[in-house]
């Protein structure tokens, strides 16, 4: 059940020159506390002109013990950030949803958000006939709408019900989040924010609400909060039996 191994990507190209370049820029971005001592905690900053690498694997840790029942701040923040209008139709998209679990014997109930689990071996990527569903080098699973033909095979393949199809013409999109009719979409881990060293909107909202039930960070960096938590606490993957190695982990389930 527990899997505390940081993920490893084998399928992504790594350019040695880029690695060196990134190493150099990371050192520059680091904070020098004393001569020869550099704190790399700030070194995530990636220059805009550099591609993402598989040295990083972005992940989320959901602490179900901290997630408040009835609170939907993460869902609201997601909708605001990504300009998702809901409430009109049954077919409205959902990138993140709150799930309430109840043990009927003991009466213990739990609440937790479920979104795209950003699997290392994502079934949606496997089945996509056009290559539109893909995994970025840093582990974020996305849909390239330019090549998505709307066949919805990925919607069927996803064991987490994370994907939605857009049936209606959309307006007033966020310029950072292009979305439109005829494509499948799902949680992007707020990739446009992550690339700017910001946290996903749901994480920010949860922390603003004082719950801190969702933590975002680099699972590959042993010094990151998320990696420490995953290394030091029992966490679980949803449907771990499928061996998809999701980037979203749950604690206290």
């Amino acid at each position, binding site marked *: 059940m527990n899997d505390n191994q940081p993920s490893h990507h084998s399928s992504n190209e790594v350019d040695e020159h880029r690695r060196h370049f990134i190493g150099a820029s990371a050192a520059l971005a680091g904070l020098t506390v004393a001569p020869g001592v550099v704190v790399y905690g700030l070194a995530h900053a*990636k220059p805009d*002109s550099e*591609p993402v690498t598989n040295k990083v694997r972005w992940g989320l840790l959901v602490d179900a013990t901290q997630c408040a029942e009835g609170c939907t701040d993460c869902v609201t923040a997601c909708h605001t950030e990504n300009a998702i209008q809901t409430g009109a139709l049954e077919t409205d998209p959902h990138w993140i949803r709150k799930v309430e679990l109840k043990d009927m014997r003991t009466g213990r109930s739990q609440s937790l958000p479920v979104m795209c689990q950003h699997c290392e071996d994502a079934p949606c990527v496997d089945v996509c006939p056009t290559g539109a569903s893909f995994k970025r080098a840093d582990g974020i699973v996305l849909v390239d709408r*330019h090549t998505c033909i709307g066949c919805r095979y990925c919607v069927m393949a996803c064991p987490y019900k994370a994907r939605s199809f857009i049936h209606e013409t959309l307006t007033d999109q966020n310029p950072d989040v292009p979305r439109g009719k005829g494509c499948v979409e799902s949680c992007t881990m707020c990739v446009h924010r992550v690339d700017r060293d910001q946290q996903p909107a749901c994480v920010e909202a949860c922390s603003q609400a004082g719950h801190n039930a969702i933590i975002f960070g680099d699972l590959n960096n042993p010094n990151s909060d998320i990696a420490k938590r995953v290394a030091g606490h029992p966490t679980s993957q949803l449907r771990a039996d499928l061996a998809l190695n999701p980037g979203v982990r749950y604690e206290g389930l």
Partner: protein
Amino acid sequence: MGKWVAGILAVLLLSVGAYAASNAAEKASRTAKPEIVIDRSKSGDKCVEETSFMRKNHMKLLMHQRDDTMHKGIRTEKHSLKNCVNCHASSKDNSVLGSDEHFCQGCHTYASVKLDCWECHASKPKQSASAPVAHPVPAPATQVGADRK
């Protein structure tokens, strides 16, 4: 006989003249070039590349940038669609679409090229229209993707 020939010639000349005149009039009224107003206070003096280059090649730059951004997370501003919109949105309604006076729609209507970027992408800038946008100075190289290292 001479009278007849002169008469026929005169008629011919007249009809040719009339035809030429009507042709010129038709040319003038045919498919007016779009009148696009660019708000210089917002966009600065220059585009990210030479105007002549952009007219021919903007789609190549956008296509290249699109794949780089989507798949590699490269988010340089220079050749991004967002950057186009930031500068070229109309000062009237803050959009690049809406009528043939608008930047994208005007030319694409004239050239009769379908424009489907805006089915997903926002045709209005994120910030308010009054906020000036930083505009990168055009680089001398005009090769596709020249801004990349």
